[in-house]
């Protein structure tokens, strides 16, 4: 367990603590290299790329946009609902959201 946590602490973007999930999504969804993905997400959030790993900067933004926060916030979108908001924010289609919509 120490190994992945060490990588996250050393080099990682902290996932939904900050904006690592959003940058990773753009790498997967559009084959973006790291700088391009960071710039794309930063522009969408109207922040600087350095803010994408900043828990303080990202906490309020995530809560306001309803794209998922790491702690328990009542009435805040979670799971599939948060991902549907991420779809809109990043202008991408997420397979799990699409499959969920098709079941309704």
């Amino acid at each position, binding site marked *: 367990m120490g*190994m992945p946590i*060490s*990588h996250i602490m050393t080099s*990682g*973007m902290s996932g939904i603590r900050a904006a690592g999930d959003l940058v990773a999504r753009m790498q997967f969804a559009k084959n973006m290299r790291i700088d391009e993905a960071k710039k794309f997400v930063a522009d969408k959030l109207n922040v600087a790329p350095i803010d994408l790993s900043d828990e303080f900067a990202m906490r309020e933004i995530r809560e306001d946009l309803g794209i998922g926060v790491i702690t328990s916030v009542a009435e805040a979108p979670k799971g599939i609902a948060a991902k549907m908001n991420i779809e809109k924010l990043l202008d991408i289609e997420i397979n799990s959201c699409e499959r969920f919509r098709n079941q309704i």
Partner: protein
Amino acid sequence: MATEYSIRMGDGKRVYHDKKQIMDDLEAGIADAADLGEISGLSSDETERIAEIIMLEGRMVGVEEGKEVPVTHDISTLRIDGDQGNSGVGIPSSRMIGCMMHERAFGADTMELGHIDYSYKPVKPVIAQECQAMEVCQQNMIIPLLYGAMPNMGLYYTPDGPFENPGDLMKAFKIAEAQESIEKSADHLTRDMIWIMQHLMRSASDGVNFDTTGAAGDGDMYSTLHAVEALRKEFPNMYIEVGMAGECVLGMHGGLEYDGTTLAGLWPHQQAPLVSKAGANLFGPVVNTNTSKSFSWNLGRAVTFIKAAVEASDIPCHVDMGMGVGGIPMFETPPIDAVSRASKAMVEVAGVDGI
């Protein structure tokens, strides 16, 4: 007497080296990679930078602010609930709990779901359970969640599978028969991986991770690239990650090609363009650790190979940085000082897009 720094051997043992020894080992490791891969070595500035990282005070180090990269996760939740020699810590828990722990407790940027055996072949008989697990996880997860496993083509050879073991055939000088067995196994594996991922994509997976591609040699990679190609055609928005097993594709068959390129003997910078051509979004290059050499030698060698792959690739490269790869010592609980230094060097010197 020169200042000595605490570093590790490739097996994790602590040793003390002065700067000259560190630089000598770094240069030897860099030269080995450059020689084998026929690639450029690192510049003196880059070599000096890795030495500085190795010699930094403090048990743990970190990348400069603003240089952080996404950390993707393989081996599924096995590192939590696994207890069969797969680096797992044996905590009884469901896979959904494991996935959510990675997202919410550890701060992972992506995650994957996988089967306890972590090979594609045994997933086929339990596909309904895997689909159910994926759907439940996707309802609760926010970070990208892939399905991951190893192509592990060895499972298609006797006594585990239907095709005669090419190793046995080769030893009996039945070379053509061995090659034919590899080709048949590769076709079967491709078919299985496509079928499994068709089901998991219908059950809401974000995509697939082919982990340790090439572990059974060039046939294993051939099979994976063809599966990637077919899946990309069927699912244009699928997230596809191809992670390798080693720095050089083993030539078990020797004659298999993809897009006119012989797969056997390819190094990371030659693997990357083919993985992209097949349709993957993300490439996971690997460099194995030599346990008899120092951390400096291994890190210099690994950064050299990976930097060349990053430069040759037109898709993001998330370097494999687990136990015994990427300069990290081959030890079940790799020392954190070595892990964090290797991680920092890969980001700041090799320029990887993620880990």
